[in-house]
């Protein structure tokens, strides 16, 4: 698909670059925290997929909603969450977004419209339609965006949701992050037929997007979000992408795929590199400008991680609060 790049100023693209880079640094720091034994549990890194979350969220308003997945840090930050409080949540600290009770897989941030990561594959595919229905019933023009992996295509609830969203013309955007694998299984073993046709069968317009090119992601997402906002109903995006790391931080051997495949993606389709190259070619943004921005971002992220480590763990009494509202 040839990307018709919307003409926007360089600042816009630089800010998206910065956001993508922030996510990458965040994830590297999270990995580091895990490796050093400082983070409880495991976590799923978004490295390689940054253009999807940042591209989609770049066309959303603060009052739009997203639902996220077990691989949710990227969505969280892209929708506007603070790096420090996100780290704090991953570390189970009382200053985290969920007071340390949710952790990586359940991080939610009501204030930025993030209805939460989800440990259930496909678990939010109907919730997002509920948010869309709510937007409509409340008479707003809010849009609800559901991120989910290719693995969630196996869950029947997604189809129930798409059927209803189509019937009732809900302002919902289904974003399938097709990173080629569900855990350790390549998805040609788990997906029959054509992904886009699954949405189209319900009368939902569906588009395949290069998830490694934020220009394309944001352009197509912009169009379909605008359509949803105008009351034209749901759309579906399949974003072709790749997770550079293992399924989770502990999955380091990755016997289910080759190193060559990984290197190919990283060398030729890295979302950061793609954008940086274009910024240089199109706007003459010099490499050292980008480097300086990177240095600043990385320093800030690493500082936040270090600070989060000093945050307190929850009071023991927190175990029984918030069971009921």
């Amino acid at each position: 698909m040839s990307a018709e790049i919307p003409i926007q100023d360089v600042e816009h693209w630089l800010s998206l670059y910065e956001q993508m880079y922030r996510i990458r640094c965040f994830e590297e720091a999270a990995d580091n925290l895990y490796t050093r034994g400082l983070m409880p549990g495991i976590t799923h890194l978004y490295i390689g997929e940054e253009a999807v979350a940042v591209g989609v969220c770049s066309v959303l308003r603060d009052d739009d909603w997203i639902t996220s997945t077990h691989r949710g840090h990227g969505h969280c930050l892209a929708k506007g969450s603070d790096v420090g409080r996100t780290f704090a949540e991953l570390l189970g600290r009382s200053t985290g977004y969920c007071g340390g009770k949710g952790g990586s897989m359940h991080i939610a941030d009501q204030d930025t419209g993030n209805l939460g990561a989800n440990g259930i594959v496909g678990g939010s595919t109907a919730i997002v339609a509920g948010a869309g229905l709510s937007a409509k019933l409340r008479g707003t023009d809010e849009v609800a965006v559901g991120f989910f992996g290719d693995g969630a295509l196996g869950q029947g609830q997604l189809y129930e949701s798409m059927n209803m969203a189509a019937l009732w013309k809900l302002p919902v955007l289904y974003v399938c992050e097709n990173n080629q694998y569900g855990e350790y299984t390549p998805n040609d073993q788990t997906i029959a037929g054509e992904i886009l046709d699954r949405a189209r069968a319900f009368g939902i317009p569906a588009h395949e997007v290069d998830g490694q090119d934020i220009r394309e992601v944001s352009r197509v997402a912009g169009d379909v979000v605008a359509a949803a906002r105008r009351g034209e109903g749901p759309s579906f995006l399949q974003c072709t992408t790749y997770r550079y790391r293992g399924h989770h931080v502990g999955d380091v051997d990755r016997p289910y795929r080759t190193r060559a495949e990984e290197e190919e993606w990283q060398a030729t389709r890295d979302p950061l590199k793609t954008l940086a190259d274009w910024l240089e070619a199109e706007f003459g943004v010099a490499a050292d400008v980008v480097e300086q921005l990177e240095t600043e971002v990385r320093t800030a992220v690493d500082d936040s991680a270090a600070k989060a480590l000093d945050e307190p763990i929850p009071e023991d009494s927190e175990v029984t609060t918030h069971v009921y509202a």
Partner: protein
Amino acid sequence: MSTPNGAVREITYGEAVREAIVEEMRRDPTVFMIGEDIGAAGNVFKILTGLQEEFGAARVIDSPISESGIAGIGVGAAMTGMRPIVEIMFGDFTTFVMDQMTNQAAKTHYMSGGKLRVPMVLRTTMGAGRASAAQHSQSLHAWLSHVPGMKVALPATPRDAKGLLKSAIRDDNPVAIFEDKMMYSVTGPVEEEEFLIPLGQAEIKRPGRDITIVATSSMVQEALTAAERLAQVGLEAEVVDPRTMVPLDTDTLVESAKRTSRAMIVDEGCERYGVTGELASVIADGAFYYLDAPVRRLGAMNVPVPFAPSLEEQTIPNADGIFETARTLCGAA
């Protein structure tokens, strides 16, 4: 039954449910309903007739046959400012909403550290007795009662049906309400003026000194019938209706058992690993030093509900069985 002050009419359980919904939908524009055949058809038990006419198809939403989908939609709508009432036609189909209720609705508030709320009502049915066989006769309220974050109500009378449902709609938590479908046409006194019944308050449906019969849903009436007959043989049974499984009014149950020193539990869910075990344990533990006999449980038989009426009948606790068990328990002191 405690008669409320003010004008009292006799209305059916079904009408009471409808009134609760209508009043709350008039009061609060964020309340809406979604379910199968609830629109023009007015629900399969015909208790919601006219609802869609009054509130429109946008607020009384006829859904496809997608139980897990509508539960999920309820959760999402509840998180974002609405108060959905999701109707699951038969309690037997709550099998499909266990993920949304358990992993999403019930946990969201906690997992988000108190930020998100899921003020959602799941209305469904329970109970056998219609020769509807194994997949349309179950009483599955034990499952959701086991899930922290859920509240669970089992109204036994028209008045409770109305008052508990109104409270559930206003509650900021997910609340499941199980309505016995055989009771929709049962009438009872319900005052004209508005009232709420708080979740978590048992009601002593009949006072008595000799034995405590804790009964839920339609079993309350069976227990009351049995109590009449027990009275004829000189035994005064106290019939206690917990009304909500969660929160559970432990005090009222335990205090009653302490007074009577004998207790039994009657519930239409299958006995094994059902709610009777919890209720019996709460009493056996809390009233241990006062009990003259073991706490007896009377749940449904541990079998799928058979179609043939003569078989089905055997599976459900009834007044006869309650009478016999109570008499034996009292004799066993």
